[in-house]
């Protein structure tokens, strides 16, 4: 789990950029402190609905302890590479380091990856 130190009184902008020739199914979820269940706040089939594979979401102020889960299913071919980055920003300032991830579908037709973040 990655800790992200943001101003809990301000909205956050999250940019996820995905590079791959694969089809990508994206779902972002959050769980506020005290919640039992995860709630989806963004979902798309990137290849079809977001052709440039760059997703931007805006979240209202997030209390400390909120968990965010960025999930990706890459599919369509074996042995095909992918990379992604998730960047938090508030106002015009980037918060923390970009979260990056790279991989391959290897011998499968699909690969699942997730990035879990905790607001501190």
């Amino acid at each position, binding site marked *: 789990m990655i800790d992200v130190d943001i101003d809990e009184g301000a909205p956050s902008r999250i940019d996820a950029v995905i590079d791959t*020739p694969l089809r990508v199914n994206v779902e972002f979820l959050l769980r506020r402190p005290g919640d039992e269940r995860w709630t989806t706040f963004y979902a798309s089939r990137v290849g079809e609905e977001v*052709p440039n594979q760059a997703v931007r979401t805006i979240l209202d102020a997030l209390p400390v302890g909120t968990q965010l*889960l960025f999930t990706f299913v890459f599919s369509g071919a074996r042995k095909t590479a992918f990379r992604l980055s998730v960047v938090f920003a508030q106002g015009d300032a980037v918060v923390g380091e970009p979260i990056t991830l790279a991989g391959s579908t290897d011998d499968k037709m699909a690969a699942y990856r997730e990035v879990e973040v905790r607001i501190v």
Partner: protein
Amino acid sequence: MSRATCTAAALLLLVAIGSRALSAQGEVDAKRYVIPDAPAFTYLGAAPTSIARPSAARDLALAVAEGIDSTGRARRGLAIDVVPWLLFPKRVTNAGYRTRLGDFVYANTQLSLGTTRSTGDSASTDLAIGLKTNLANGADPLRDAALGDRIDAAVAECRTTSRTPEGRPDGARLEDCADRVVGDSVARWLDEEGHWNDVALTVAGAFGARLTESRIDQLVGRGGAVWATLALPVGARFGQLLVQGRGDLLRGRRGADDTTAFSGGARLGVGATNVNGFVEMVGSWRSAGVDRSTQQWSAGVELRVAEALWLSTGFGSRYDALTSGNRAVLLANVRWNTTSVPRLVAR
């Protein structure tokens, strides 16, 4: 009777009337001309057990640095296989991959780098750099937008059924589900929609050099190799012609002549649900040495007699190499090999 069945029946008839293996004029190593995954390792004749696959420029630099010791000499056993687009900021998207040839080639390019001990000179190190890419591939599922939409829908369905009680995606279950449904979709697209034999062209090359005394400032070019594979459809779904070749240039030592060599083959495969077959010709040629030119050929047919039971037979000098390891029976003086999966269809 379909054309595929007619062709297979004709092949079967040739076998049944008493064909016998034709004597080969020499052995052609078919593996030589099949495009390798990592041309540098194949060129060196190396089979590294540990391969670095950097996904960032910094990781590549570190991997290369690992191949040089503190005295500036190359270490043997360096093996790097990299997808170059991961090292650069240029974006790769599915939309670009489908619609722009440049993006397709860029995304399919692979670079390999390897070192190994020089043959006949234990102090020196051989180095090779290889490149491989696709220039066309109609059988690539990522290039079909309609299939992509079906894949998206299938994966979305997996999302709904692969959840933990807390509503979080169950990663392992989701990945297994997506792997299965996407595999099924792609298999149907290839087989039932007839894309398995679409046009494809893959090329690869490797450049080799010798580092005398393993010093990186003592690099002498040794030659190189190029590979190409061209697949062409025969009829809409009837069959496929596969042409493969490899050319080699080996620089001569101390004023000796350079050696050039070529090996390659052409294979016509026909396929149907219950019967398939092939005819294949392979050959090689080199500019020096004995047995400078060799040719071989073979043909075979395969029938599905029951679920998960295939009977195959054939003839020609390379046929045994294709079916070695199968259980064999003699029926009507013809050797039949039995397998649980089709072996001979060209795909």
